[in-house]
């Protein structure tokens, strides 16, 4: 049976009735990373240095050394990333069951609210309203919050001000609902973190990080192109690098979408 499904899939990929959508930002030195108070250690920016470029340093080949953080660019958060998930089994990227890296994805469209309210909140009420229209969120699926924030560039992306960054995100109740009522696999956003820009002012601070990782769930952030995904029915491919004891990883996130869905 699986042969039939996979050969059907291969055929559908071949004739593009299933499309592959790239949900990843380009790793670029100028792409924003999260900013912490300067007395804390900071997330490394993406950097690239030539090793050689068909020159005296290596005549026939070009290659680069790159430096970055586990949490630079479009990236995956493992449970070990947060103190609430520190003692869970298989909580680092190298030990997570790879079955988790492929799975169904639901997309909750918050783009309209986020366009007029930079601190737009995803609430349980909005999730229930989405379910009214699209059906209940199946357990063990990815839930992505679409805000079209990925279309912002430069200073508008972090939207950092004297009282901190301002960008949309989920309320503590919304995250608790997704975990306890729907038992999702993970939660993803287009912003620099899974939490709202002002997420440090919730109780607990950074509720998405705190609850998701405490429950062994995963995070995806700095996603792009969520507007190209259907509300449900797509398959997400999100496999982090296999970093020993890694708390996260930059990765190429892709979605498989039925042609008539987009």
């Amino acid at each position, binding site marked *: 049976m699986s042969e039939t499904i996979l050969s059907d899939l291969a055929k559908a990929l071949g004739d593009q009735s299933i499309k592959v959508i790239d949900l990843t930002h380009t790793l670029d*030195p*100028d*792409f*924003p990373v999260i*900013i912490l108070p*300067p*007395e804390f*250690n*900071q997330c490394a*920016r993406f*950097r*690239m*240095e*030539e090793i050689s470029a068909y020159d005296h340093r290596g005549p026939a080949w070009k290659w680069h050394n790159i430096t970055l953080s586990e949490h630079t660019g479009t990236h995956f958060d493992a449970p070990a990333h947060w103190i609430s998930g520190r003692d869970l089994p298989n909580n680092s990227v190298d030990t997570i069951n790879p079955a988790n890296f492929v799975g169904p994805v639901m997309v909750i469209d918050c783009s309209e609210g986020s366009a007029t309210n930079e601190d737009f909140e995803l609430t349980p009420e909005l999730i229930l309203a989405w379910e009214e229209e699209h059906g209940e969120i199946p357990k063990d699926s990815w839930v992505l919050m679409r805000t079209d924030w990925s279309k912002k560039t*430069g*200073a508008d*992306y*972090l939207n*950092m*001000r004297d009282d901190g960054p301002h960008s949309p995100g989920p309320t503590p109740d919304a995250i608790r609902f997704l975990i306890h009522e729907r038992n999702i696999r993970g939660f993803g956003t287009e912003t620099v973190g899974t939490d709202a820009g002002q997420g440090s002012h919730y109780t607990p601070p950074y509720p998405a990080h705190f609850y998701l990782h405490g429950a062994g769930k995963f995070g995806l952030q700095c996603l792009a192109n969520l507007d190209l995904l259907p509300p449900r029915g797509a398959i997400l491919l999100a496999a982090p690098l296999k970093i020993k004891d890694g708390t996260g990883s930059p990765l190429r996130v892709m979605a498989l979408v039925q042609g008539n869905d987009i």
Partner: protein
Amino acid sequence: MTDPLSPPPKKNPQVRTVSPTRPPEARSRAALGLSAAAAEGRFALQHCDECGKVQYPPRDACSGCLSTELRWKDTDAKGTLLAETTIHTSTKLYFRERTPWRTGSVQLDAGPVIICHLHGDCVRNGRVDIINRLDRSGQAVLLALPSQRSPHMEDDPQLRAMTSDPKHRRILITDARNPNTSEIARALSDAGASMIFVGLSETWRPSPTLDALSAMDKVDVLPLDVTDTHSVQKLAGAIGGKTDILINNARFLRPGGVLARSDTSFAKEEMEVNYFGLMRLAQSFGPVMASRTADGVNASVAWVNILSVHALSSQPEFGCFSASNAAARSLSQSLRAEFRASGLRVMNLYCGPTEDEWYQPLPPPKVTPQAVARTLVTGLQNGLEETYCGDVAKDVFERFRDNPLILERETTLAGDGA
């Protein structure tokens, strides 16, 4: 009276850029004492410890009593011009390209008669002040200035040939986020700089200094991150050919020595900005600046590094930062040597604790941005290689010069625990 210097015309793209030539470099070992003093803008001569004679030119022994106990001491620089002449031709390329050139002899009040270059406004039998400056070969020469200021005297071609004057020059300041940048830009603008480029890192987050900088007439804020090779190369590609003075004031600073930290994160960032940043800038901007040191009124002229005086000797409370500055200072010496053939001058400006967030818990005296700007502009106008801003920097340097091991003992005491 000196003819005021006119702003340079736009460059003629069909004319070959003049290749740099240099005045004679050879000096005796004894004479290098004069160059060392010129690097700091001091007029110093050999004083004999035995008989007290002040002598010129520098020698290995006293011309009065043959003692070898000679000490370089700052010396009264006043004198009277005895004789003067104007040279109209020379076998030396450097001077051929610059004649007419005035020289003369001056009777110093301190004793000796010296041969020196003459400012255009010096008159025979007139009173003069001698300044000791580095020429484009990086060696000391003496120049007599009229003791009374004359109009536009800083525009004298012989004087300008020895300084790094910002007037009519285009200047890059590397770090818009440094709290001293606005004051430096303002001071350079007041000193006649024609254009001031300011590099801004991470344009995706706010910079508190940006509004003040953007409001300034001659300032152009451009993206530059000294930790990103590509960003440095990109800016050098855009403005490297018209950067006459580069001021590297990028600084990453966190408190703490080795054991105060439990990892190498901050230390790496300190090296990335303070050491590798300088290297990246030098690799991208250095060659083109070195090729333009004879390019007319706005020839490239100087490279400035703003460093902590603890580059000389560690301040353990900021031990890792001190180490990155020591590395940067060492690199600046290499750069100075590599630029020497072109005549491009490397000036290091050393500061004590600065008036900003990272030194906030330290008591005064602290160096204000205005003081840094003042020291920097004066240093350029005097063509210095080494200059010190504020009492702490001057004190540390004096103690370093006196005995580096005593200085280290004094700055590394553990306190009376017994």
